């Protein structure tokens, strides 16, 4: 019995390894097949959605304000790169990520004081405040945002104006973020997070400092969302208010929900689909209907497809292997 279990586990792990290698191979080959800018957008949003999912999927906290971290990462990086021309992009990205992490610490300290629906409302309100700050602050370019940024040279050596090298940097950033999240949720720390999600009072009674765990998860999620925003700014060479708008906070929820809340690969799939949808519809006659279409997908997902695509596949495999 024990032997079978071990073999199953290793079998499971082997499948995971193959899947990871296959995905990595796709990631490495993709820019030769598809439009690199679209792929980079997908990867940036995938990291954003993965960071968001860390909070919703593994701690059960629904943040309605993650756009604030995406935008903070983007704006700080954008501002520094435009202000200090000698700054290398990786330092800009690092600074943007740190700024978002710090903002996450402040928001987290406030928001974790309440649970459930209140948590969602508080994060939404704080993010809206951030939106107005970016709208009015002197360094953000107001309604226009920051434009014409230079990608520069990575470590002062690698020219990022070449889309291919830019793409591999974005891929590396994504893989780093993804592995960090994977390591986090599979660690004992992640086990405690899941315990909080399933039954918070019990986690408290077991002696865990629940608030500290939630805060740390929140800060980590905010920091990774900031990393996504900072990277996105370097790729597209602009930072705008779109990233700070509540629509963006809603969209990352949709990406995660569509792909599968609480699965590792769900957000990657969901965000790629949503970005692709934007890409396809954006140029077509249906361009103005994106908001309605996303709303309909939202409603359908909630009514009939709560597990998301990856969640559904996982359930299907489990059922048929039994």
């Amino acid at each position, binding site marked *: 019995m024990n032997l079978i279990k071990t073999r199953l586990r290793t079998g499971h792990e082997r499948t995971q390894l193959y899947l990871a290698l296959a995905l990595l191979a796709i990631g490495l080959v993709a820019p030769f097949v598809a439009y690199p800018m679209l792929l980079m957008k997908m990867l940036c949003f995938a990291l954003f959605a993965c960071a968001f999912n860390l909070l919703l999927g593994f701690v059960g906290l629904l943040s309605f304000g993650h756009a604030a971290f995406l935008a903070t990462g983007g704006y700080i990086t954008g501002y520094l790169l435009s202000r200090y021309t000698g700054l290398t992009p990786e330092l800009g990205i690092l600074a943007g990520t740190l700024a978002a992490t710090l903002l996450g610490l402040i928001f987290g300290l406030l928001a974790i004081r309440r649970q459930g629906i209140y948590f969602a409302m*508080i994060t939404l309100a704080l993010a809206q405040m951030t939106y107005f700050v970016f709208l009015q602050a002197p360094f953000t370019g107001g309604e226009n945002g920051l434009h014409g940024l230079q990608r520069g040279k990575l470590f002062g050596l690698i020219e990022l104006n070449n889309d291919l090298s830019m793409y591999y940097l974005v891929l590396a950033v994504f893989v780093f973020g993804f592995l960090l999240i994977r390591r986090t949720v599979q660690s004992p720390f992640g086990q405690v997070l899941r315990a909080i999600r399933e039954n918070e009072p019990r986690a408290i009674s077991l002696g865990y400092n629940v608030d500290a765990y939630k805060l740390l998860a929140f800060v980590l999620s905010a920091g990774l969302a900031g990393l996504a925003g900072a990277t996105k700014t370097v790729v597209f060479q602009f930072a705008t208010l779109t990233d700070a708008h509540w629509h963006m906070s809603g969209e990352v929820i949709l990406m995660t929900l569509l792909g599968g809340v609480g699965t590792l690969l769900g957000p990657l799939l969901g965000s790629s689909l949503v970005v692709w949808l934007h890409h396809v519809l954006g140029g077509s006659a249906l361009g103005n*209907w994106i908001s309605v279409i996303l709303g309909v997908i939202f409603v359908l997902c*909630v009514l009939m497809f709560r597990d998301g695509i990856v969640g559904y596949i996982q359930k299907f495999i489990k059922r048929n292997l039994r």
Partner: protein
Amino acid sequence: MIFDIPASVLFGQLTLGLINGAFYALLSLGLAIIFGLLKVINFAHGAQYMLGAFVALLLLRHFGIDYWTALLLVPVLVGLFGAALERFLLRPIANENHLYSLLLTFGLALIIQGLFTNLYGTSGNSYPIPEVFRGALNLGFMYLPTYRAWVVVAALVACFLAWFVIEKTRLGSYLRAGTENPKLMQGFGINMPFLVTMTYGFGVALAAFAGVLAAPLYSVSPGMGANLLIVVFAVVVIGGMGSIVGAVITGLAMGLIEGLTKVFYPQGASTVIFLVMALVLLIKPHGLFGKEP
């Protein structure tokens, strides 16, 4: 002159603040009533408020239905629409995690707002002020446009009526009991699913009523409810959803604070309520009128 600010400017901004506060009060009241029974935060509340204003505008344009009729008819129409949403979309997932219901209402808000943006564009449409309310009242220290005075009065009367129905009538006692223990109420032979549907419809009707009131005041546009709703969320967090009186007082107070900020530090007017929210969370996390769990 007070603090080097002309009195007319100060009082002007304070009345504007009072009007905004009246809308915050009406909308947060509707949210609180819905939350009490359904445990759902209605993210479509802003879209339903916009719907109220738009339906009033369209009724006037296409059927010549005047302001007074609209003030009664539109909340009923939009309220029924809300009841249908509850019955056919929210009820099937009522037993799932409440976050799903929240996401559903968010999706509905996207759909409603998107539809109206496509049909009528993003720009504002003006709704004429009813004949009776054109002109202004001379208060001695300032002129108060009559319609603005009416909005504050009407909003407060609506809040009072809602309070009266919930606290002083039999229907209201069902509602309060249902908030405490829905299963027991069902056991007593009260048709709880119906009560839930009606409650959601009633909350939506309040939002639509606010929308009709707002139509002559602000320009009627598809986006008019979305940003307002986020401020109302902050108001709800500040006040806590414990009491109706609390919601009204918090709503008015936040409107006045916003108005004052506009006078003394205009750049901060859009953020001040969120800052108050942060402060309240630090000092009294369950809100000024909220109950400790």
